């Protein structure tokens, strides 16, 4: 049973069968006029719109801009969250000093800051990156902190009896022990990253995928709106797959990731 099960669900075909079937159904329904193309254009129409935009170069430019915003925000917010998670996880004093502030800020939905952020930064790049930084900071911070706090105390005790220095203790015991939790944080952060970017780009931007969608809406170009949404979905999927791949290679010791 398990042999068969492994071979069928591990194939790429199975992963993509459902999305492909959905698209096929959607195309058929559109072709027969069951879905109005003013509500939802056929996939072929969306592809065509994408093709045209790709030829003018506009599509690539917008994707590039959005991608750059996303990664910049992720790198800055992720590093901040990671470093603060580490220091607060390793030092109780630090945590006591910063925790109240962090919890207060955390309870403000970061998207509620958009009006303020626009007032501060206008609609230039800083505004979007700032919002993404806020969006990814907390999931990474909280999960790094949690990961460090929940490293098996018995392992730490063992490391001490073998005379590990603090430095070694960190690199060989605490960090690897916290890594599974840090990856959970990273994957949450990726979700928040796209969410924040979509909202920020639709409200306050002059380039990027979100901007492209808003422009299209003004001219009632439903196919480009749908195209933008699909691109977001695709980028989200790519980001998540990359994180999974990274996780799998970093956590190959973990029973959950061992290929049997």
């Amino acid at each position, binding site marked *: 049973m398990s042999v068969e099960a492994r071979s069928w669900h591990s194939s790429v075909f199975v992963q993509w069968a459902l999305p492909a079937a959905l698209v096929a159904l959607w195309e058929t329904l559109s072709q027969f006029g069951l879905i109005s193309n003013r509500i939802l254009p056929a996939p072929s129409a969306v592809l065509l719109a994408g093709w045209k935009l790709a030829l003018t170069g506009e599509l690539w430019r917008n994707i590039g801009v959005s991608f750059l915003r996303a990664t910049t925000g992720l790198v800055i917010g992720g590093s901040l969250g990671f470093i603060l998670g580490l220091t607060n996880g390793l030092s109780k004093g630090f945590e006591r000093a910063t925790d109240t502030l962090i919890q207060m800020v955390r309870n403000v939905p970061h998207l509620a800051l958009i009006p303020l952020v626009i007032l501060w930064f206008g609609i230039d790049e800083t505004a979007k990156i700032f919002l993404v930084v806020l969006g990814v900071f907390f999931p990474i911070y909280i999960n790094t902190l949690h990961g460090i706090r929940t490293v098996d105390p*018995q*392992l730490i*005790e*063992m*490391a*001490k*009896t*073998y*005379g*590990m220095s603090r430095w070694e203790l960190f690199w*060989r*015991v605490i960090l*690897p*022990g916290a*890594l599974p939790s840090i990856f959970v944080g990273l994957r949450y952060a990726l979700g928040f990253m796209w969410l924040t970017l979509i909202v920020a780009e639709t409200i306050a931007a002059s380039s990027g995928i979100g901007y492209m969608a808003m422009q299209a809406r003004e001219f009632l170009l439903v196919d480009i709106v749908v195209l933008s949404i699909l691109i977001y979905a695709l980028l989200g999927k790519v980001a998540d797959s990359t994180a999974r791949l990274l996780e799998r290679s970093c*956590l*190959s*010791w*973990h*029973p959950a990731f*061992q290929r049997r």
Partner: protein
Amino acid sequence: MTAAAIAMNRSVPEYWKAADAEHADASSGLSLTIRGLTKSFGSQQVLKGVDLHIPAGQFVTIVGKSGCGKSTLLRLLVGLDKPTNGEFWYGMDPAAAPDQSVVRVMFQEPRLLPWARVLANVEVGLGRQRSDAAVRQRAHETLNEVGLGDRRGEWPAVLSGGQKQRVALARALVSRPKVLALDEPLGALDALTRISMQRLLEQVWRDQGFTALLVTHDVSEAVALADRVLVIEDGVIKLDLRVDIPRPRQRGSVEIAALEGLILDELFRDARAGEDA
């Protein structure tokens, strides 16, 4: 002295009778002296004054009811906790600075690093010397000694409970400790694995000559392995029993059974008295 010579020495039954004369210090163990050791957690006094001298190379087992302070005593002796009062030292010189790296401890759980391969886990036991390639070779040899040389490249997660515990033993032994403290290291193993682990433990102890302190719940294990059995009760050593049965010992022999009976009587004296009344 070579390991073989030590082993030959050991096979002389008279050997341990003279052990207290400290000439055993020539072996690779260290003696342990404890004076008036107490330990309290809050208002609860767990150890109420332990006095003890263990000659170098002796195999001592410690038994006692659950919660009587066996683990507490061991944790003090390996430096994981500080005594409330009293003192202890290894070797002849009470004033010598304690060198914790000659004392190793093994717990009931293997406590292997799940993210390090089996060999790397053993190398943890080398401490600071790990950077030396020649020393690292010893990790491999020790792994062979516990019979797991061919599993060195595996993750700990794929090993069985007994195998993990053997890796933990190799990690404890790789730095050639002079004292090995063991807190119920076989407690979680099934009966057959236990017996083979007991054999392995006895064999490495004979080969290397360290001083062994084994806490166990299993009275027959205590008698089968020990030169000396200590019974702890109410925070003090209630019984200090020499086991002069020559090795290799026959499991289930009359002498062993008699000593077991003696220890069990001691452990359950209060309960008996209660029943009689």
